[in-house]
């Protein structure tokens, strides 16, 4: 499934590890382009992930009802947090993104998984998400269009958007591709 960053398809160096998959040893992810591995573990296996020898990058995948605060101590050692939309209707991941950026000042990658809609792309970015793993069958072009749709927004968000004119308005600055 394509990974989208700033409206563009990018290569995905990360490996998702399921709840029952064996955890690969550091530096042992096959086909990894960069030295050292990058694995995303479910929250239930966070301790296990953190206990691996140093050298690889670690990410954690949250469920919508997981509390962000549980990551407080581990967060400095994480390079990625994945949030998920079980359906596009379930907007809890928006608040999780915001909490990661605002409460815990997480500087790393926030990856969106599950089944978001392209029409939610701008919202995701403005709440602090960085990448989206596109749902099966989605056309990246539709997402790219959604990304470029709006030039302004009406409220403060996590991104450092410039004020536009007066009032609450913000200019949606596009990061270079």
């Amino acid at each position: 499934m394509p990974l989208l960053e700033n409206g563009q398809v990018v290569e995905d160096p990360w490996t998702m590890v399921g709840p029952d998959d064996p955890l690969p040893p550091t530096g042992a992810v096959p086909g990894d382009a960069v030295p050292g591995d990058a694995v995303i573990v479910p929250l239930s296996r966070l301790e296990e992930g953190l206990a691996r020898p140093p050298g690889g990058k670690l990410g954690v995948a949250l469920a919508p009802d997981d509390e962000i605060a549980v990551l407080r101590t581990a967060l400095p050692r994480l390079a990625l947090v994945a949030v998920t939309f079980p359906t596009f209707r379930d907007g809890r991941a928006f608040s999780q993104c915001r909490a990661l950026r605002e409460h815990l000042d997480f500087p790393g990658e926030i990856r969106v998984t599950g089944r978001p809609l392209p029409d939610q792309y701008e919202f995701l970015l403005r709440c602090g998400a960085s990448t989206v793993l596109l749902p099966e069958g989605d056309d990246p072009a539709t997402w790219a269009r959604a990304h470029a749709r709006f030039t302004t927004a009406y409220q403060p968000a996590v991104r450092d958007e410039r004020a536009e004119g007066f009032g609450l308005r913000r200019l949606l600055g596009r990061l270079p591709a």
Partner: protein
Amino acid sequence: MSAEAETLADAAPALPVGHYAYDQVDRAFLHDRVEQFRDQVARRISGALSEDEFKPLRLMNGLYLQLHAYMLRIAIPYGMLDSRQMRELAHIARTYDRDYGHFTTRQNLQFNWIRLEDTPDILARLASVDMHAIQTSGNCIRNVTCDQFAGAAADELVDPRVHAEILRQWSTLHPEFSFLPRKFKIAVSGSPHDRVAARFHDIGLVAKPGHGGKVVFDVFVGGGMGRTPLVGVHLRDNLPEEDLLAYLEAMVRVYNEYGRRDNIYKARIKILVQALGAEGYRARVDAEFAAMDRARYRLPPETVAAIRARFGTPDLAAPAGAAESLAAARAADRAFDRWARTNTHPHRHPGYVSAVISLKPDGGIPGDATAAQMDRIADLADRFSFGEIRITHMQNIVLGHVRQDQLHALWQDLRAVGLATANIGLIGDIIACPGLDYCSLANARSIPIAQKLSARFASPELQETIGDLQIKISGCINACGHHHAGHIGILGVDKKGEEFFQLTLGGSAGNDAAVGQILGPALPEDATVDAIARLVDAYLVHRNTGERFLDTYRRLGAALFKDAVYAVA
């Protein structure tokens, strides 16, 4: 001012009175939104979007699929319109609908007979007059409502339109709060007399001057009607204006994170507030408020001032003797005198008054207006009220600033087009949802009951004798007709395929907000109107001098009224 500057000032178009004036940035935003929806409709028609995926997208543009056709709900932010916008609504009614529209309890307008293919064009037409249908539906923050007499009422402490506009902007395509567990409704009052039903909203805000005259807000949360009618919890007092957005972000964020999503009937914030308790909810909001980046969400006074500056202000000059002129006209014309007594509201400025146009003609459908009536109201607004029009949550229309010496002329013109019914606040001023005639959720028809009651109590003398009495009718337990808050509430229920009506008494949406109590077994349709007539008779017999129906009910209890309704030989 130099001659050149004076010419420039003259050339600059005046800002519309009543609502915030759009500029090119606002218009570009609306254009983007229309094009987004055009693309969504095209994706739906091509099959790229399933109906399941399209549904929330169309709902966020106010497009419902109802019993017979698509229904389009158009946003009228905080109920404020101008004549140009009203004429465009009339045009849409004529061109794309069946020549009429329906004003709703959310201060919006609904068209009932819309084709999906036409909606992008209708939205483009709306955008051409700075209007839209954004967030009139869906699980997001809905159209913010406010006092229909805002900026005009004699009892007002703070003009709530500016904050309602700030909340409109803040909530428009809010990135975090566009996929909430359920719909979310906010009302703002700037008067100590609650005319916005603040305690029946997800969030109700009551603005008032605090220390040094700075605006502060009393905050209510978790009120609402529907299946679980609840009066909102008083969350806090004296919220500083600068923290308004930050605090609301915290309130809604807690709801987004913890509101139930497993059962749509338990997904409203009122259920969360009940589950956590007021203290529990408040503690979570306070924790969120403390943890968030407050500087980012601060609402500085300069921003408020900049938005306030986008509201046109009426030139409230009235000739000396305007009040005397009105008094003379009232003395000379009894019908006008009655209308002036029931259908006006005191204005903050001498020589002015706010006039209410009843959309509840005797035997009519509450809230409906034809295209011709909309055009006529637009003309009258231009002539008598700076082109400004307000929609009330009681489904009526207000001209906010009418010179007292011109009120008689306004009334004569209204009478000529059948819009001078003198029943505001009286038994004929009925709220009714569209019911089974239009709505796919309804169990019973609300409109015929409303029409029969309105015809039954058509006599203006009788209505004035009865006095302040609010009847509110819902066709199902979702309570769009606010029956829980009616002094007399009527709820349509389905009993084995037949329409029955359950009566509730004692509800109120004001400062004394209360949920009405069920009186007894539901009645068949043909018995309901008679039962209400007996109930009103019982009140007239037992009331103390000057006592409202609601107060008589509260003093005497249900038994007397129960007897009147059910003890029929």
